[in-house]
């Protein structure tokens, strides 16, 4: 019985460190490399940015500015996967790794974020209209309203159908921050800055 308890203890410890509660938000966006292509496959650049808990138990290091300079890979090894209309799209579930390159490290006790970015080019069928996303667990736990310890999803639709103007679409982007400090008990306004990468800039040489 004692060994059984020990087994469970080790199992729970493993769960804590392997699964862990480490997600603090992010974004996924995309753009075709050539919006005017008529090829049967389209090269699509997928952009990922996530914020991870700097103090997550599975991280062997605690990030510093040195990791930004060193462009350290953030060891959260998973994949962006296809969730809808996947058949025939050309998207493979092991092509877009979630291992980011460090761009920011914030040791502030309230922000405690290790974050990075990644750009991955995939070849998709020009008829693709798929939903891709990053689905895993878990959101951090302490004092998180609603999502505490829950699964996260970031879901993104990639539709390569030509727009009415004849170009392939480019998704919007926004600047993101890990945590914004907001005082309680007063009405506040927060504007999310959104912009479109101008998809139809043509370069004339």
């Amino acid at each position, binding site marked *: 019985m004692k060994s059984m308890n020990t087994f469970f203890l080790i199992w729970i410890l493993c769960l804590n460190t392997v699964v862990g509660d480490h997600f603090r938000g*992010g974004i996924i966006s995309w753009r075709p490399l050539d919006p005017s292509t008529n090829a049967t496959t389209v090269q699509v650049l997928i952009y990922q940015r996530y914020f991870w808990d700097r103090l997550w138990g599975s991280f062997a290091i605690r990030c510093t500015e040195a990791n930004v300079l060193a462009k350290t890979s953030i060891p959260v090894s998973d994949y962006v996967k296809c969730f809808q209309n996947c058949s025939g799209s050309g998207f493979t579930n092991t092509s877009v790794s979630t291992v980011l390159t460090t761009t920011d490290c914030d040791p502030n006790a309230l922000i405690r974020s290790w974050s990075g970015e990644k750009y991955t080019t995939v070849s998709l069928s020009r008829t693709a209209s798929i939903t891709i996303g990053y689905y895993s667990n878990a959101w951090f736990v302490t004092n998180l*309203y609603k999502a505490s*310890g829950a699964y996260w*999803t970031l879901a993104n639709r990639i539709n390569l159908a030509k727009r009415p103007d004849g170009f392939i679409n480019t998704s919007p982007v926004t600047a993101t921050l890990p945590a914004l*400090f907001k005082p309680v008990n007063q009405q506040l306004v927060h504007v999310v800055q959104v912009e479109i990468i101008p998809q139809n800039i043509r370069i004339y040489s």
Partner: protein
Amino acid sequence: MADNDGTDVLKCRWANSNSGTNYNRMNECQGACLGLDPYATLYGDNCTLIFNIPTSYSGWYFVVALQIEDYYDSNATTPMSSVPVQFLFYAYTPTGSCTTRPEIIGERPNRGNYPRNKFL
């Protein structure tokens, strides 16, 4: 030289779990759905949140889980793409005598306005 004739209209909406009807056809936010509910209102046309977090949640985090969607023009009823953005608010009790919150004054950047992609 470059030419930009973009006319896209951008809107925001809350990410949601309505996998049968939302544009992504999947649960877009799992545990983070309604992460500021019922303390916020989202104005999608300019992606603006108006909110008031109760004092009892001082020291708590809130997930703002949005989908940013682009429409070909103001008549379009279906977006062309849907981008997830999820970030945190950390609620705190202001201290000291400075009860007026800091503000950004002056013009908002072009891309903060509607339609936003006329800035190039």
